[in-house]
């Protein structure tokens, strides 16, 4: 009788452990593998989350802590992330890309390249981003940023040699229309380029 009871106890503990581990695994995967499919903001290849939901949405809170720790409230800044080009293909340092855009309607904006681990990519130029102040504009006030492992003459953003990477747009104090209808804002395109 005692043995049966002990066996039941062991089985119970084992079942609880299996359950806890499964729950942990599912949560870990959902936190760390954000595909953008459940993004609340979408515009071209750029995806974002409505950070006003942070706090009530615990999964989003955990994702923010992992991928964009210390993000600010949307009243201060809008963050947008691209992990694919304008054709939907995953960004990779095996390819070159050109980012073409017009100045964004915000007090300060920047475009930054991050490695898959969300840190800046080591490179000989120590160049990690461009912003409204340091990007070189074309004669029509647009800009072209060249993403490549190989040095480019203007607006070179080195992509390193580690494969997958992300682009992030930050818009600090954007104009009212950006908040009202971000889907209609003309954001930069990311096109694959020939080497």
């Amino acid at each position, binding site marked *: 009788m005692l043995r049966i009871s002990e066996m039941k106890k062991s089985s*119970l503990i084992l*079942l*609880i*452990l*299996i*359950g*806890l*581990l*499964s*729950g*942990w695994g*599912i*949560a*870990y995967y959902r*936190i760390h593998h954000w595909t953008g499919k459940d993004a609340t903001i979408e515009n071209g290849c750029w995806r974002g989350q409505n950070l006003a939901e*942070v*706090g009530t949405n*615990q*999964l989003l*809170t*955990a994702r*923010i*802590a*992992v*991928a*964009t*720790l*210390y*993000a*600010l*409230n949307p*009243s*201060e800044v809008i963050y947008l992330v691209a992990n694919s080009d304008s054709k939907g293909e995953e960004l990779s340092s095996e390819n070159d890309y050109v980012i073409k855009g017009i100045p964004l309607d915000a*007090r*300060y904006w*920047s475009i*930054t390249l*991050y490695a898959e*681990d*969300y*840190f*800046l*990519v*080591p*490179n000989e130029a*120590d160049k*990690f*981003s461009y*912003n409204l*102040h340091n990007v070189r504009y074309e004669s029509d006030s647009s800009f072209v940023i060249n993403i490549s492992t190989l040095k480019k003459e203007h607006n070179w953003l080195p992509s390193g040699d580690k494969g997958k990477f992300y682009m*992030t747009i*930050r818009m*600090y*104090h954007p104009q009212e229309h950006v908040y009202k209808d971000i889907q209609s804002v003309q954001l930069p395109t990311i096109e694959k380029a020939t080497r």
Partner: protein
Amino acid sequence: MIVVFAAVAGYFLTIYITPRYILLKIKFNSGSKMNVPVYSDVMTDKDRHVVMPNPDFLYVASGYNLWSGPIRITGKMPDSTYSSVAFYADNTLNYFIRNDRQTPDKEYSFILTRNEEDKTKYPNEEVIVSPSEFGTILTRILIDKPENIEKLKEVQRSFKVKELNK
């Protein structure tokens, strides 16, 4: 049925713990002390404590601990460029922010506490009630022009944290 209940518990527990674990990991890895500001230089690929650093900013970070009472935070903001002071709870959520446009005289002073009653104890101060005992204060200063960096570093250094019960 037991497996399902345990899985649901494991799922929500992981989601709850993750932000707090990350905050503790950063504190442990950086070796920084509580209520002591850390003044960072311009971010590069070598800065690997906090994900997605912005290389356009000068940061000051200070983990806070209100266990022994309220703290006073003081500092200045630059005249010409974006700056902000943001407060984050132990779950890494931003619950308060003040930027340069909201600070016309370019100087700020806050009392950070856990107790609502401190608002009456410090009637002439701006009192912020923290939702948690622990958290982080993060100051951002935008480097608008490279030639301004030394001047902006002076502003960065004006950020101070003082424990009021010490």
